[in-house]
């Protein structure tokens, strides 16, 4: 359930590069372009992936991704 506060950029649909491998059930890391800079988000996925697209934001710095 996405509760993006007012003023927060929508990052759903953004494409990010996996910098820490995502394993099943354990978080990896994706770097997304946000607010003119880049930020690292903890990412979960159902399968190991190398490049991901964000499908859901589960926390302030947590996203659900799927292979691109």
């Amino acid at each position: 359930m996405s509760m993006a506060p007012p003023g927060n950029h929508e990052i759903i649909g953004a494409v990010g590069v996996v910098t820490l491998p995502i394993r099943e059930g354990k978080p990896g890391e994706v770097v997304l372009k946000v607010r003119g800079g880049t930020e690292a988000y903890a990412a979960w996925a159902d399968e190991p992936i190398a490049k991901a697209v964000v499908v859901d934001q589960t926390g302030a710095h947590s996203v659900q991704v799927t292979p691109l």
Partner: protein
Amino acid sequence: MFFWHVPAPNEAMLISGSKHAGGTGPEFRIVTGHGCFVLPVKQKWRVLSLSLRESEIVEDVITKQGIRLRVRAVAVFKVGDDPVSIANAARRFLAEQTQIEELVGRIFAGHLRSIIGALTVEEIIRDRDRVAQEIKDGCHTEMEKLGLVVDGLAIQEVEDSTGYINNLAAPHSAAVASQARIAAAQADQEATQREQQAAALKAQYTRDAAISQAGFSAEVDQAKAEAAQAGPLAQAQASQKVIEQQTALAQRQADLAAQRLEAEVRRPADAEAYKQRTLAEAARDTVKLSTEAEVFRKVQIATADRDSTKLSVEAEAIRRRQLADADADATKASALGTAEAAKSLADGESYKIRQLAQADSDSITVRAASLASGNQELIAAKQLVDALPQIVGAAASAVASSNLTVLNGGEGLNQLLSGIVAQGLTVYQALRQSLVTGDSPLSGHAMPGAGNEDVGNGSSGEPANDGYGGAGPRR
């Protein structure tokens, strides 16, 4: 402006007291990146730093294998940039911003224990991704609740009280140490080898130098000794020369004595010996010459006698030979004259006979031609008669051409020629008679003709034999 406040780029300004739109948003305004009016008395503003913070953690932990480690790590974190994180962090840390590091350090210590507990020592040391994943897995959720973002956790030092890490390194360190020792040993070996070679060369050079020194020293000693003995040597040489001169003098004296002896004793003796010898030779030669003269005289006498005898004999022989030659020449001349006369006589006789025979032959030819048929026998007789002068001529010519030397005088030659003519006449008479009588002369007289020829030959050979027999003394 007086009430216009602007936060720094790494700060978030939190304004409370204003009426808010309500809803799900926070009860205070969060302003980042731009300025904002803050009403005095009615509103209150605070600043939350968004910059990086770090806290150091030292913690005893146990690894997945149960090994106790003492880990010193540094955690790097900051307040998240998004409004949710700023709101969470503001509510928790705004009044105690300076204590965030200590607080977070304690929290991290607990997380570190769980993170290390999920790893082995080897992974901690070598697998950076694995460590980062465990950190993310262990503390991300809790830090997100606090509105913080962990940028990194660096393990700076691992102390190992059990010696596990040292043991991990032991094989490698032993191998490396072994290699180091091997290298050192090889280096030492090479160095020793070179040193020994150098020492050997050094010893060799030392030996050579010592040999050279000894040689030079010997030369020096020799020169010194020679120098030291130069004086005595010169003295000895001088003495030697003196002795040589004395020797020469003695030699001269001896020569003088010898020559004197030669002149006084030997020459007179030689002269006497020569005199005696010469006298003896003269006497011997006298005897020898007298003997030879006697012998020569006798030889000459004998030779003269022999030559005179020989010459007298030869003179007699020559005389006799000349006499014999004179007799032979006289005999030969007379014989030649007789033979010439006999030959002329024989030629005359034969010519007469040939003329008579020619006359008879012509008459017979005429008579034969008068006969009608001709008698072969007569013809043959006629031909024989025709040939008769030629036969007689041939006999005469044989006597003439025989060049016989009839030495028993013209008597024998006359006998010969008269024999030949008599035979020719006998034959002719017989033939003529047979022609007159008409008998065949061939049946009875042809053979006697041949027999007469044989007789002629015999009569001619007989004088020839006599001639040769007479020639015997001529030789």
